[in-house]
C-alpha cells in the first residue's frame, strides 16, 4: 500500500517537474511590459485613492449642512424656536413688537441664527427700536446680541433701581416731580411714550375707562404675585410680564386675532413659554421668568393690571397727572409730532 502510494507520488512529482521545467524558462512578459503593468496598476490605484479620499472630504460639508437643515426642518423645530423667541418679546418687553414676516434666518453647521427688528409705537407711528441677533446651537440659544436705537433704553440687566413699572406695594426709586417736569418741559407738538404705575390693581377695561381720550393704551403689566418683591424665589430680579392692549394688525402677530382676546392670547403665550422657559429666559431681559408659579397665579387671580405703557401727544399725557389712580409715571421715548 505505502509502496503504491510512494510510487504514484514519485510519478506525479516527476511529471510535474518536467512540465514546470518546460515552462519555467518562458518569460511571458518582457521586462518592459512587466514594468508597464506594475506602473499602470500603481497609478490607477493612486488615482482611485485620491478620488475616493477627495469624495469623502467633499462629502463632509454637504452632509453636515443637510443634517442641520433636516434637524431644524423636521417637526418644525426652527419655526417653534422662532415662535418662542418672538412671543417672548411681546410679553416681556413693554410696548414692543416685531414684524415676524421680515425675520431672517441663516442655518450654519448645527446652528441657526435669526435676526429681526423690534418696533415701538410712539404716537401713531412704529419706530424701529432696535435689532436682535440670536444664535442657536441646535436648539440651545445664546444670549441675543441686541442693538438698541432708543434714546432711553431699558437697562439690559434688570434692577429695582432702574425699572419703570412698579407694583402698588413696591417702592419707587425715582423722583416723581422730575418725571412730571420732563413731561411739562417737553414742547407741545411732540409725542411721547410713558410708563405709568397704578395705586391699585385693576382690570384692564377699568383702566382704559379712567384714561383721557386722545391717547393710546399700548401695553399692560400684569400682576403675577412677584411684582411686589421684584425678585423671584431665588432672589433673581424679574421684569414685568404683560401684553399689548390693542389689536395688532401686523401680519403674523399673535395679537392679530379675531376669535381670541388679547388676554387669551397672552395666557396661551405664557403656557407656550413655560414649556420652553430656557429659550425664553435667554431672550428676555430678566434671567428668571419663573413662569410656572406666575402663570398659576394669573390663572387663579385673573388678569389684574398694575402698570401700563401709554402713548400720545405730550400735552394730552400731562393730563395723566390729574388721575388719582396713577401713582408714578416715567417718561420713555419722545418723538416729533405724528398724531394727526
Amino acid at each position, binding site marked *: 500500500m505505502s509502496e503504491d502510494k510512494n510510487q504514484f507520488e514519485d510519478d506525479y512529482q516527476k*511529471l510535474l517537474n518536467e512540465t514546470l521545467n518546460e515552462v519555467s524558462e518562458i518569460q511571458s512578459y518582457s521586462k518592459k511590459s512587466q514594468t508597464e503593468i506594475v506602473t499602470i496598476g500603481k497609478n490607477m490605484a493612486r488615482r482611485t485613492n485620491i478620488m475616493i479620499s477627495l469624495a469623502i472630504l467633499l462629502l463632509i460639508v454637504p452632509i453636515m449642512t443637510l443634517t442641520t437643515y433636516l434637524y431644524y426642518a423636521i417637526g418644525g423645530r426652527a419655526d417653534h424656536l422662532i415662535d418662542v423667541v418672538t412671543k417672548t418679546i411681546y410679553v416681556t418687553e413693554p410696548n414692543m413688537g416685531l414684524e415676524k414676516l421680515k425675520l431672517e434666518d441663516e442655518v450654519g453647521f448645527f446652528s441657526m441664527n435669526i435676526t429681526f427688528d423690534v418696533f415701538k409705537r410712539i404716537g401713531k407711528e412704529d419706530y424701529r427700536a432696535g435689532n436682535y441677533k440670536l444664535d442657536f446651537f441646535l436648539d440651545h440659544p445664546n444670549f441675543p446680541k441686541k442693538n438698541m436705537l432708543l434714546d432711553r433704553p431699558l437697562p439690559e440687566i434688570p434692577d429695582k433701581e432702574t425699572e419703570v413699572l412698579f407694583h402698588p406695594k413696591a417702592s419707587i426709586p425715582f423722583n416723581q416731580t422730575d418725571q412730571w417736569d420732563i413731561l411739562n418741559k417737553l414742547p407741545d407738538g411732540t409725542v411721547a411714550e410713558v410708563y405709568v404705575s397704578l395705586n391699585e390693581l385693576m382690570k384692564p377695561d377699568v383702566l382704559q375707562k379712567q384714561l383721557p381720550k386722545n391717547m393710546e393704551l399700548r401695553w399692560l403689566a400684569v400682576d403675577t404675585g412677584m411684582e411686589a418683591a421684584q425678585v423671584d424665589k431665588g432672589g433673581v430680579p424679574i421684569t414685568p410680564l404683560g401684553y399689548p392692549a390693542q389689536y395688532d394688525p401686523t401680519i403674523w402677530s399673535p395679537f392679530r386675532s379675531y376669535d381670541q382676546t388679547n388676554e387669551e392670547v397672552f395666557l396661551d403665550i405664557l403656557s407656550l413659554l413655560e414649556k420652553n422657559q430656557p429659550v425664553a429666559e435667554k431672550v428676555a431681559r430678566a434671567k428668571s421668568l419663573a413662569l410656572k408659579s406666575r402663570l398659576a397665579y394669573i390663572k387663579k387671580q385673573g388678569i389684574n393690571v398694575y402698570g401700563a405703557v401709554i402713548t400720545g401727544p405730550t400735552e394730552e399725557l400731562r393730563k395723566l397727572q390729574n388721575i388719582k389712580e396713577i401713582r408714578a409715571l416715567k417718561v420713555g421715548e419722545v418723538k416729533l409730532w405724528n398724531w394727526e
Partner: protein
Amino acid sequence: MELDQVYRDNVNDLYRYLYSLSKDHFIAEDLVQESFYRAYLHLEDYEISNIRAWLFKVAYHAFIDLLRKNKRFVIQEPKEERHSSKETPEKRLLEKESFQLLINDIHSLKEQEKHVLLLCDLHQLSYSEAAEILEMNLNTLKSHLHRGRKKVMEKVKERK
C-alpha cells in the same frame, strides 16, 4: 521603490497562475493588471509578510470576483485560430503541450482540488501559503491535494 521591483518579478508568475485558472489569455492579462491595481489599492490594509503569497491571494480573489460578476462565464478551450495571431505570452505557453494537458487535467477536478493543485504544485507555493490564500484548513488542503494528485495521475495513465 523596492516594492515595485518585487511586484515586477512576480508579473510572469501571476500571469501563468491566472492563465491556468482562466485558460484565456485576455482574461488572464486583464486580471494581472487588475491584481496589481488591487495590490496597490489595498496595500495599507494588510500586514504583508510574504509578498508573493499575498499577490497570489489578490489574483485569486480577482479571479473569483470575475466569476461572481459573470455567472455565465465559461472557461473554454483555447481556439486554434488565435495561434495565428502575433506572438503573445499565451502562444508561448500553449506551445508546451504537456503544460496544456496538465492544466486540462487539473481543470477536470473538483473546484477545491483544482485550486489547491494549481497553487501548491503548478506554482510551488507552500501548503500553509496556499491554505491562507484559499482560506482553508491545512489538513483539508492536504487531503484535497492528495486526492487531486491521485486523480491527475489516473488521467495521465489513461492517456498512455
